């Protein structure tokens, strides 16, 4: 019986090609916009999240303005911070802009950063040539530096920068390495930066306090407790004064972004659902017309022994077919739109099984809900009136 009903429904859909096509189109637009919007938002979220992760999802950044008496952190504080549980190392950052002289080229406004050996150990794979900063450089305040790729190209066009001596803020510094071109976000780019041991950088830049420290976690899941421990140490370091430091956990930022885009996804899916609703009304409209058109047929089928439930099933299958059709075509169109958007907006396209289930399930549900009333109407027709209908 089910097979027969499907056959009859199919024959009717085929018979009214234009009408069926337009109705399918209604559902198709609804489903494809839901799929496209969800996929695009998810892709964009993934891209934003990975950019933030490239800033260091496994590290916590401390900004310490300090008090008037103690304007930053000292060596002792760094040692204490590095001893917190689940912390694998700390890397202070000293930064400033200064002039840079090589041969007869003078470049001003060059960004100089002071780091330690932990940075080069943790941020692996950042060196193109030469070596990074080691612990002896830090302890001996060696006058060495590692140069960013763009800067190296600009100043040492055609010559090997490693081993060259340059002047940074008047101090002679030997270049020991070249950084790889950083592919990360503009925020984390080191292409125009010179990295020195932080001890030497402090001397060169005339900085007396460490105001920024990256804390590397050995277990990012423990970021909450690590943050708490760090806060305790910093509080005691700054005599429990308020507004003396901030602890920035990248995971927190990623979580917040996740929340925002999650809401955005819901909002957009909600808006797109309205078009699916309109598609559903289209189905209902078509089915009501179909029932009216086929009143005599319904009457005849009833006279020949069709039970009300069988008539209802036949019409319900028809609306579900239409709707599923729209759902599947909408899924394909939605994927195509999302794929194009992924190429244009440069994010990684991913589609979850969940999205597919949502699309197909949603459209089947729309077909059932909006097909039910017309199907019931058909099943309740009085066979005598139906047969007399012209």
């Amino acid at each position: 019986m089910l097979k027969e009903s499907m056959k009859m429904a199919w024959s009717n859909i085929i018979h009214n090609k234009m009408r069926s096509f337009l109705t399918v189109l209604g559902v198709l637009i609804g489903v494809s916009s839901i799929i496209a919007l969800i996929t695009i938002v998810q892709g964009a979220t993934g891209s934003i999240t990975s950019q933030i992760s490239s800033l260091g999802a496994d590290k916590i950044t401390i900004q310490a303005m300090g008090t008037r008496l103690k304007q930053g952190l000292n060596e002792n504080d760094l040692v204490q911070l590095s001893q917190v549980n689940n912390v694998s190392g700390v890397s202070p950052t000293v930064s400033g802009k200064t002039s840079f002289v090589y041969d007869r080229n003078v470049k001003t406004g060059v960004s100089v950063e002071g780091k330690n050996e932990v940075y080069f150990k943790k941020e692996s794979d950042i060196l193109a040539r030469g070596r990074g900063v080691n612990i002896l450089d830090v302890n001996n305040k060696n006058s060495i530096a590692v140069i960013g790729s763009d800067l190296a190209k600009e100043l040492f066009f055609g010559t090997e920068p490693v081993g060259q001596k340059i002047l940074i803020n008047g101090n002679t510094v030997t270049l020991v390495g070249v950084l790889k071109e950083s592919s990360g976000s503009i925020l984390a780019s080191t292409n125009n930066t010179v990295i020195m041991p932080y001890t030497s950088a402090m001397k060169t830049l005339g900085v007396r306090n460490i105001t920024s420290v990256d804390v590397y976690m050995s277990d990012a899941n423990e970021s909450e407790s690590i943050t708490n421990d760090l806060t305790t140490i910093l509080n005691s370091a700054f005599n429990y004064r308020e507004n003396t430091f901030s602890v920035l956990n990248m995971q927190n930022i990623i979580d917040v972004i996740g929340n925002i885009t999650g809401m955005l996804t819901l909002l957009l899916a909600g808006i797109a659902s309205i078009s699916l609703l309109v598609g559903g009304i289209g189905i209902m409209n078509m089915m009501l017309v179909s029932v009216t058109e086929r009143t005599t047929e319904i009457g005849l089928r009833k006279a020949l022994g069709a039970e009300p439930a069988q008539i209802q099933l036949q019409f319900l299958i028809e609306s579900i077919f239409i709707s599923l059709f729209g759902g599947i075509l909408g899924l394909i169109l939605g994927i195509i739109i999302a794929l194009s958007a992924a190429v244009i907006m440069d994010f990684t396209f991913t589609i979850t099984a969940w999205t597919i289930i949502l699309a197909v399930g949603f459209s089947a549900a729309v077909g059932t809900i909006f097909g039910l009333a017309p199907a019931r109407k058909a099943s309740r027709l009085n066979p005598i009136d139906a047969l007399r209908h012209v």
Partner: protein
Amino acid sequence: MSEILNMLDIVKCYFLDAEELVVLNKINLKINEGEFVSILGPSGSGKSTLMNIIGCLDVPTSGKYILANNDVEDLDEKELARIRNREIGFVFQSFQLLQRLTALENVELPMIYAGVSPENRHKRAAEILGRVGLTDKMNNYPNQLSGGQQQRVAIARSVVTEPTILLADEPTGALDQKTGQQIMQLFKELNDEGRTIIMITHDTNIARYSKRIVNILDGCLSEGAVS
């Protein structure tokens, strides 16, 4: 011969603007297996209403109707559908064939609702179309057939499930005289093969083909004679 239809004091009323309209007034009718009965009456006599009740498309306001040992009175929509499928084969004035189905598929239709398997349906429908002389037209659509051929398809459809009664409503009404006679001849043959036929008509000439005539006038039945 066994009794297959028994109507006892059947009354059918309609209510129009609080005015009661009695269409059938205490109808009593018994029909035995193998009969060929014409219900003869002018338009407005209540014959269509009677046919709807006989065909279980409608239920009487009061009275008792027993069809092939089923008391129709307390059946619901679903059970009425089953009774129609099993006991009644309809032939309509306007043929009522589905235009989108071939002659064969039209004949198969009642068997779908009877739950007959596709193979058996095809076989049986082809057989019966052969019986009404349409073997070479099985795969034609109704609009490719003449009126007489369409009515033959409809007759084939009405007998394909071996119903208790073949119920025909003005079966020649849409046909020319010659074709009408051929159709009546077919009914006669079917009756000779043992089928019980009830035919509703206003045409005395057509009613003559039957073995028994029942006159209906203003909702009342009276036995007539085959002249």
